């Protein structure tokens, strides 16, 4: 029986980190070892930490969790000679609506992640790591633990990793289902057993992270990209993408396309090509209305704005973000008021309550949008939605307030006419 995949791969993909996904038994160590597994680690073991970090810098790899911070630089911030031990933390709290890539990396290729973590441990001289998996990914926790068990049994984790004498311990920690815990410092608090609210920065986790120890914290996809970089060289990896946006990344294509799924594409891949070719075009031949390029927190792009290459800089120029790769395609029938409400409902529910603008702002906006959606909108609500969002933007403790404000501002500015049409449907005044 052929392996049932999340989605059928496309010939248009550039398979680097997802190349083993299709293999039968790809989650086992045997298959991993038979397909270049742990070559990178053994190579890295012979390299100096500086050389490893240099290679990662050469690759142009940028954080795949959403912020896009250059990975090599982040690694270089962790003080290797700090008196306290270093800690590696993996952010597998994939919670951004529209994103579903980390789960595949864990489900189909957990040993690639383990190898990436081990290489990072060499770079920052760490001997302990934690994979923080979101609570809703229950089945993945088992899969990850099975992979870790197997790696321990076969000597790829523990006191003598791959016979090199390197010591590394890895544990899975389960979140309790809070979006906020995807924010790195909230994740650390949650990992420590505290209430998951963001910490004040500085100090940054690289200096004082988990239990106050220097901590290297990256996304699953970031770590998973490392073995290929070390194995084939940073330059080879970088060559997949555009000059400042090295490599490939997993695109989580969803929404009104014929073939939604997770596809590995080089950075700088044209957005329209992703919709029309990878995604097999718009569902039912409808017209494209808008695209959420990188997860629900990114400002939406209207159809005319979508003719751009998908890299960090081009998206920023278009006033949005590449985010965590959760691309949602919306067709002409999409109700943007309903969409705005759905997005705000999510952020209102996920606001941790720590700071005033986010806690009260998301709640108020959700209530206005709900009222609007229910047909009780008022003309003055339209500018107020934008204004209240801007009152949150940039003023909250962490980026969750921004994540709620940005899409809302873009929707109210770009699709104001739809809100106005809602007013005509208004039945009862408030």
């Amino acid at each position, binding site marked *: 029986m052929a392996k049932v995949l999340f989605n059928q791969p496309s010939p248009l993909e550039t398979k680097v980190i997802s190349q083993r996904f299709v293999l039968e038994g790809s989650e086992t160590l045997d298959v991993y070892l038979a397909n270049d597994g742990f070559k990178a680690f053994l190579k890295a073991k012979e390299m100096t930490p500086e050389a490893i970090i240099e290679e990662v810098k050469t690759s142009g790899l940028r954080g795949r969790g959403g912020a896009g911070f250059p990975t090599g630089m982040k690694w270089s911030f962790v003080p290797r000679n700090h008196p306290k031990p270093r800690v590696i933390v993996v952010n597998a709290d994939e919670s951004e609506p529209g994103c579903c890539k980390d789960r595949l990396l864990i489900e189909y290729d957990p040993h690639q992640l383990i190898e990436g973590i081990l290489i990072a441990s060499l770079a920052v001289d760490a001997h302990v790591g934690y994979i923080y998996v979101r609570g809703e990914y229950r089945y993945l926790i088992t899969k990850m633990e099975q992979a870790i068990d197997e790696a321990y049994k076969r000597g790829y984790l523990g006191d003598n990793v791959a016979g090199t004498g390197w010591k590394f311990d890895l544990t899975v920690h389960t979140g309790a289902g*809070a979006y906020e815990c995807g924010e790195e410092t909230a994740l650390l608090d949650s990992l420590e057993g505290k*209430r998951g609210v963001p910490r*004040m920065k500085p100090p940054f986790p690289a200096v004082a992270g988990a239990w106050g120890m220097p901590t290297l914290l990256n996304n699953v996809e970031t770590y998973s990209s490392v073995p290929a970089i070390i194995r084939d060289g940073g330059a080879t990896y970088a060559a997949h993408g555009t000059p400042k946006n090295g490599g490939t990344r997993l695109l989580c294509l969803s929404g009104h396309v014929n073939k939604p799924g997770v596809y590995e594409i080089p950075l700088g891949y044209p957005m329209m090509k992703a919709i029309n070719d990878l995604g097999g075009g718009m569902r039912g031949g409808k017209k494209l209305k808008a695209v959420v390029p990188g997860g629900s927190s990114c400002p939406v792009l209207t159809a005319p704005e979508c003719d751009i290459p998908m890299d960090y800089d081009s998206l920023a120029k278009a006033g949005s973000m590449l985010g965590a790769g959760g691309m949602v395609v919306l067709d002409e029938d999409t109700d943007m008021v309903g969409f705005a409400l759905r997005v705000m409902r999510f952020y*209102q*529910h*996920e*606001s*941790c*309550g*720590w*700071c*005033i*603008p986010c*806690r*009260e*702002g*998301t*709640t*108020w906006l959700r*209530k*206005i949008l709900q*009222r609007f959606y229910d047909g009780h909108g008022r003309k003055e609500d339209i500018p*107020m939605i934008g204004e*209240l969002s801007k*009152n949150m933007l*940039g*003023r*909250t*403790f962490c980026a969750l307030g921004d994540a709620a404000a940005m899409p809302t501002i873009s929707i109210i500015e770009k699709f104001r006419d739809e809100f106005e049409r809602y007013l005509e449907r208004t039945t009862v005044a*408030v």
Partner: protein
Amino acid sequence: MAEQIKLTIDGKEIQAEKGALLIEVARQNGIEVPAFCYHEGYSLKAACRMCLVEIEKTPKLQVGCTTPVADGMVVHTDSDVVKRARKGTLEFLLTNHPLDCPVCDKGGECELQDMVFRYGAGESRFVERKVHTEEKQWSPVVFFDAPRCILCYRCVRACDEGMGVNALGIGNRGVLAEIVPNHHDHLECDECGACIDICPVGALTSGSYRYKARPWEMEHVGTICTHCADGCKTTLGVRNEKILRGNNRDRSGINNEFLCVKGRYAFDFVEHEERLQSPMIKTANGHEPISWAKALDIVARKFSETTLKGGKFGVIGSNHTTNEENYFLAKFARQGLNTKNIDHRRTGDLATLFDALSGKNDALATTTDLYNAKAVLVIGADLAQQHPFLSFQIRANYRHHQAHIYTVTTGPVREDNQAFSSLRVQEGCELAGVQSLAEKLKAEGDLVIVFGDAIQGDTLRKLVAFGDSLGIPVKYVGLVDDSNSRGAFDMGLVPRDGGLSADQMLSATDLDVLYVVGEDPLKNAALASKNAFVVVQDLFMTETAKQADIVFPAASAYEKNGTVTNVCGEVQKLKNAAKVMGTKTDLEIVGLIAKEMGLNLGIWLPDKVLEEIRNTVHGYNVPLAVLATGGAAHTAPLNGRVAALPGIVKSANDTLFTSGGLTPYSKILNEVMEAPGQLYSSGKGQQ
């Protein structure tokens, strides 16, 4: 001194210490940066987003409470962007805040109310349904109304960092997030009410004060708490001569924001129904009221007769009465009654301490020293129980200066949590324990030694010798129990020059007169002299009063002016807050007896007596301006050798809720102790 830098705030060039917080630098220079969550002395939260300021060359607004100042920084706190941001934040805050100001206790002194007045957002655009939850009662004295709460987390920090109790936490998430007790539905804490004081809004309200008055209806009288020796300032809210609340919101006393359950709530003994309101005479049918004139006449006659025939007096003064009263009583006894038999219930061996320290300058620590010392050694005392403010100071010292705390006690104490070294010793072996710490202590920069009644007499001399041997500056706090124990000693209520001590008076079979002012010596002892004439001045019908021939109704510390000296020797002024009909101050009663006896001991007005004290009592020449402005003046009466005193020195070793003689008459304290699950309910108190 730290590096100085220059920055500009609102066009004003300012010099500041590098790395200081922007909000502090602005405030020190008279520029207000509003904030809810920022509270001096507690950890930073950056949660309220009220202190957003504009910093040039920084794209986003920055929070003033966590931004350190840097050289060349140009800051705007009053630009349009900043004003809009404040208004926006306030508007958000008000969406779920009930606008019940007209009935809210905090109305009139609410920080949210003030800020909305100042920074706008007075008109609401919010037309949705508010989030509402029911009010909760967490303890007899603490109520919590979640909708009013703005989640500034001040209470959580005051409880955890300030009190070391950690009774409060945060529950739920998002808009439903609220402050919750860490133990189910009630507080397991000191019931100090610091959370109520520190709350910027009316979310936390006081069980005894809620819905009773508006702040502007009351007169706010800053006086000194009468329940323990720490001398905390409590500001009593008084309406129509009735005390309605105690707090320390203005932070004007030595205790800064600290006030324990007694200072905040236990003023209610003042109006206890058993208060004596008329002089009483013992008859065959028990005690019966009698006029002041008759009572004074009987007492004066008896005193005069006894003096004339050279009879034996015993005079026992109080740990609670003012310095003026103690001084005047001692003078009355020595000059009017010609007796040396003067004493009070001594709770710490001050005589030996002062003698052992004679010739040293500056060897007595102040409460501020406890906050600033590099190291503090606590011997044989559970400060959180008996001296909550000293305990607070030590915690604050640890929190702000990482002071090294050493504890040498028989059982666990709260200071252990901050301790650099904790030592458990058998009772009586405290000194040996302390001596074992010598090497560690020698490495400290300076040291304050706080010790209880376990250290007295020879042991105390050895402790001082040990302190001398360390080779570092050492200061001492000799713990005493009550609000003016230190003053009673300093004013000479002691059996000097061969006088009888209190226990000797009680056991003397030939005592003619026992004169007790504000003390209850017969509570646990019998009077040997069956024919002694007993006169008592007190608030209540104490055990001693029940045996008295004449009882005078005395005014409490909250009903008089005068000064008291706290455990660290800091003199502070009492201010008359309330009036209970029929009572007189002890000073006046002694004065009237003296007058009735035809004695001339001078005018018995507190200010006049204080003047005499300043001129005659060593170390008490304190600056009047400091006292008059509500400050604390330190006295250090180390003036050569002090003769050893006969008699017993023993602390009552009370608990937080039972210290001092008046706590049993506080209904609130009793209620708190009876509440289920309290950390320090009676019996569980002695750790």
